[in-house]
């Protein structure tokens, strides 16, 4: 996105307002991702904090190759993974996350979909971290398997297997509700 490139260009020249704008632009996205992965708002806030501060330390040398959003999301995923290794799996209530509407729907369809997707969201929290990570990064953040593989340090095949396994597991957990 053109605006991101301009922001990064200005940020690299020490413009604090650009850093503020980058933060304002992606903060909710990044916090949402961190909460999805860690299920803990407090830990998620720490993740976003660390990612933004580390990003700020790159002033003058940061080179944007892909999308800024993708870069920051990868940083959050990496940081969250490190944190997950250290902590015991404390979960946070789902009301910590506000879901985004994906577009207009018929009211009745909307209501059904809303209920089903809430159920899936709850079940998603029960998946092991590595599986949830693949699902969240791929489906919520549109990250490709190859990129997830690079970010997580495993092969693309492993990521794809985790993804398939996660979906199958979610389906089993849903107990056929979706498959009707």
């Amino acid at each position, binding site marked *: 996105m053109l605006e991101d490139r301009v922001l990064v260009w200005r940020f690299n020249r020490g413009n604090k307002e650009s850093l503020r704008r980058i933060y304002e632009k992606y903060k909710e996205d990044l916090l949402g991702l961190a909460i999805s992965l860690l299920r803990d708002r407090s830990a998620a806030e720490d993740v976003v904090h660390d990612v933004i501060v580390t990003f700020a330390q790159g002033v003058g040398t940061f080179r944007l190759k892909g999308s800024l959003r993708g870069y920051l999301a990868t940083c959050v995923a990496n940081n969250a993974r490190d944190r997950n290794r250290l902590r015991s799996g404390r979960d946070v209530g789902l009301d910590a996350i506000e879901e985004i509407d994906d577009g207009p729907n018929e009211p009745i369809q909307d209501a059904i979909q*809303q209920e089903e997707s809430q159920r899936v969201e709850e079940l998603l929290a029960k998946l092991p971290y590595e599986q949830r990570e693949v699902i969240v990064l791929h489906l919520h953040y549109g990250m490709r398997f190859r990129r997830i593989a690079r970010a997580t340090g495993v092969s693309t095949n492993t990521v794809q297997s985790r993804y398939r396994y996660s979906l199958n597991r979610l389906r089993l957990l849903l107990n056929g509700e*979706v498959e009707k």
Partner: protein
Amino acid sequence: MSKKRNIEKLIRVRKPRATTGDCMDEMILNDAFAAMDKVIQFERTGTEMSIGRKILGNPITKLAAAAVIVLGVVLGIKVLMNDLARPVYALEQTLEASQGIECLNFKCYGKYDPCSSNEAAKNAWILRDANGVVKKIRVDLYGKWDDKLVEVWDEGKFLVWHKCKDRRADNCKNALEIIYESDDMTAMMLRFAEKHDPRQAIEHLYKMQKEGKATIDIQESSNKDEPIIITGRYLPGEYLTNDQNMREITDVLFVDPGTKLVIKKEVYMDVNGQTEYRGVYKDFNYMPFDLNVFDIEKEVPDNVLRMVHYNPDDVNDLGVDVNTLLVKTGNRADKMAIEITRQFFDALIAKNYKQAGQIFGGMPADEAEIKLGGYNVVRVVSIGEDLAVDEKNNFSYVPCVVEIEENGIVSRLEAKVFAIGPVNQSGSRRMKIVNIIW
């Protein structure tokens, strides 16, 4: 396959987003700024030490470095002087450059409003007088069904022509509607001019900045050929439309560094914390254009029906009350157009132009005397059956034959009387004549 898609879709729709608090924002930004300062400070110190060591290390390097410093200082002063000599852009320059411009043509492309509601593009012409007062506006809207809506506002007269090839187009009437004395239409078109004219956009932005309701960032490139970029961020509800529910809007205006006129405008909207692109106005042309562009009555083919409406905002005085017509027709709704045609000709024969004008779209009596009295209708020979043209809009025509008298000679004339009714959907149940083809 479909099951897999279902579950993926369910996960996708729960795309998470969490709201951050002020405290979190403040803490993160303070720490980030501090980290940034630390890096910048460290790099400066590090670079200074490194240069110092090199200078002290070798006399030749010392000399070369001194020469570089002298050269740098000389060049720096030159650049600084150039920068000081170069005038810095200010919004007032665009406002001044826009003064006296009478013609404006531009195009608009966008996914949503402000350009359009259905991904259509607009081509617009605005004509002002020397004092900057809007005199004429034309907007061509391109619809998705290969249809085109042409709207012209000409000092109070509003013309709308829905040119459609495909019947799927909304409200496709394939008719030219000429509307007089409509305050609503006038307000709508003037608002369009106000909202889209770059001069007004800059005036508004300037005013909002002074009131603390918008921020302005101006980027001026050292390359004199590059446009000046003005980024105006409005607080929610403070955009040009004065819509209190409007979210935070960002206008990015591209100004020609030579003429200081706006050449392009991009519009972004804040949606759930994301800056979303909404549309672009471009191809701004301030050169005079052919004024025939506003004369769409000439442009519309003869076979397209003309419908005339007067004073449509004041519906109570238009046409004839449907209940009155039903009493006359013995509750036959399908005979109402015939009855209103009869009443219209009766009024013309009696030279009651006030009543004839009222039935005919609300036309004023003096205008009815000139436009309708000129035919001098003396007798109705026959009135045919009501033929529906557009049932959805209660629009039909009645073929009839009348006798007219001119210089003592009576002759027969065939006429098609077009009637529409009820006039509006706001509770009024009135029918009116909108056109006659003699």
